[in-house]
């Protein structure tokens, strides 16, 4: 199997605190991977190391066959790695349509040559309608509800036309029907050929979405396999419920 993403023995420390301890992870093209773990287990640090927001001290991240070591976050985005943030971080002074336009101008533009202004606008509308926000294209992010903010966050990540999308807790705080909406959206994106890593605390959502489940506890990977098997793993149960 040639992995799309290969995380090889990645470690990260913050002073004396070991946030990641030799994490190994491979993700195949087109896969839907769930990543879970208790609070503070290093999930977001792992995402930050993969996406270049943080630089890992040890180990190596390979994406699409190339080492990502030393590349800045924007360079990784140009190569097809996109993420949404745990807490939505919209560009507050830009309209929704312009929020979506940024990755198109700076990433898609760069990758596949100049786009025509009309096709950029059309694509903005298309992406916003994909997440059901097309009627608010000319609103500002401050007019949005929490769930809409998360949808915008996803739409902006998808606008970069990534090969791999990392959705960092895009469902926290949402209602059941909103979670269903989000899952449907992620499934649609996956069917369009985007590999997805879903980081989530809501187990029902993770179990429905994931083809494979990885568990991080205190910076180490303790389980990796079919979701049904992983949740029965005694070590995982112990990490979540205590002994």
């Amino acid at each position: 199997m040639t992995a799309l993403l290969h995380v090889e023995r990645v470690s990260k420390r913050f002073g004396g605190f070991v946030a990641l301890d030799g994490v190994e992870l491979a993700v195949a093209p087109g896969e839907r991977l769930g990543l879970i773990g208790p609070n503070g287990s290093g999930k977001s640090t792992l995402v930050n190391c993969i996406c270049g927001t943080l630089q890992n001290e040890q180990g190596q991240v390979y994406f699409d066959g190339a080492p990502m070591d030393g590349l800045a976050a924007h360079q990784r985005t140009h190569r097809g790695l996109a993420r949404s943030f745990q807490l939505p971080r919209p560009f507050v002074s830009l309209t929704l349509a312009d929020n979506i336009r940024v990755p198109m101008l700076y990433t898609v533009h760069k990758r596949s040559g100049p786009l025509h202004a009309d096709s950029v606008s059309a694509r903005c509308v298309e992406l916003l309608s994909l997440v059901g926000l097309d009627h608010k294209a000319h609103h500002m992010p401050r007019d949005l509800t929490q769930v809409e903010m998360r949808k915008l966050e996803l739409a902006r990540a998808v606008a970069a036309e990534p090969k791999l999308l990392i959705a960092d807790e895009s469902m926290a705080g949402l209602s059941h029907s909103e979670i269903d909406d989000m899952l449907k959206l992620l499934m649609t994106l996956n069917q369009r050929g985007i590999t997805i890593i879903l980081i989530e605390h809501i187990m029902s959502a993770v179990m429905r979405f994931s083809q494979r489940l990885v568990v991080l506890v205190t910076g180490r990977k303790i389980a990796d396999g079919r979701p049904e098997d992983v949740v029965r793993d005694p070590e995982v149960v112990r990490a979540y419920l205590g002994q």
Partner: protein
Amino acid sequence: MRSLPFIAICTGIALLAFAGLRATGNGYLFVAGYIVLQFVVLATAWNILGGYCGYVNFGSAAFFALGAYTSVFFYKLEEIPLPIPLLIVAGGIVSGIVGLATGYLTLRLRGAFFAIATLAMAVVLQTLIVNWDFVGGSRGAYILHPENLELGGFSLPYSEYLFLLMLALALIAVAAARAIERSQLGFGFATIRDDELAAEASGVPTLRLKLIATTLSGALMGMAGAPFPYYIGYLQPSSTFGLEYGVNSIAMPMIGGTTSWIGPLLGALLLGSVQEYARVTISSSINLLIVGLLLVVFVIIAPNGLVGLVHQRLRRKP
């Protein structure tokens, strides 16, 4: 409106203003107008980094002074003085390079730390100039210019020549700021102002964009400073690096509004004129008091400046 018609219209307005001032026959108006226009350039330049990217520069006076001292340097060096347009280019290059270097050293800092670093840079540069005898050191330098500019049988009073140069610079600065605002670069700058992490994640090369902003901003400030020794006649470090430039470059965009090119333009025209008026009618040192008071008032009643006030009005109407 596209850029070319915009520039054409602005040039038209500028030439009309020049003709109008000439018609009054009052030479002082050119002297006062020069200072106002100089502030238009400084405020617009500050806004490229401070307003568009959200990086507050307290060291504007240093970039301005570097441009001025570049002119002094060439004045002292050459037997035949260089024409001022060439000095403007030279000043722009020197300040642009210093802007790039400052950016490289400080842009990993954010917020108050960046502001403090720019202030420190200004102090360091002032110390260098004070101790550099060739350009006059702490004694200052005298620059003499002919009374009239003679150009192939055509004669123009020097104050009008300097005014015209500054008018052209102001046009260039405003047109450049406006073009940036509407370009891909302007989009990138706005994302840096809003959220740098999210900008990086969207593929925006934030460090490179910030370096472009510091270089452009510094270069424009240097260009504004280059003709200054010829205007003032006697240049000394303490006033060239003075509070007046640093504070005004920040206050003018703040009062006008920082998110668009028109804000610094309005702020500089308004604040510059009021200060010049007060300097002549009340006292020569009251100008900073006016800036301070206006800044306080605006921070309280219109934190987004005049442009913000107008936007608010427009939004409330429908």
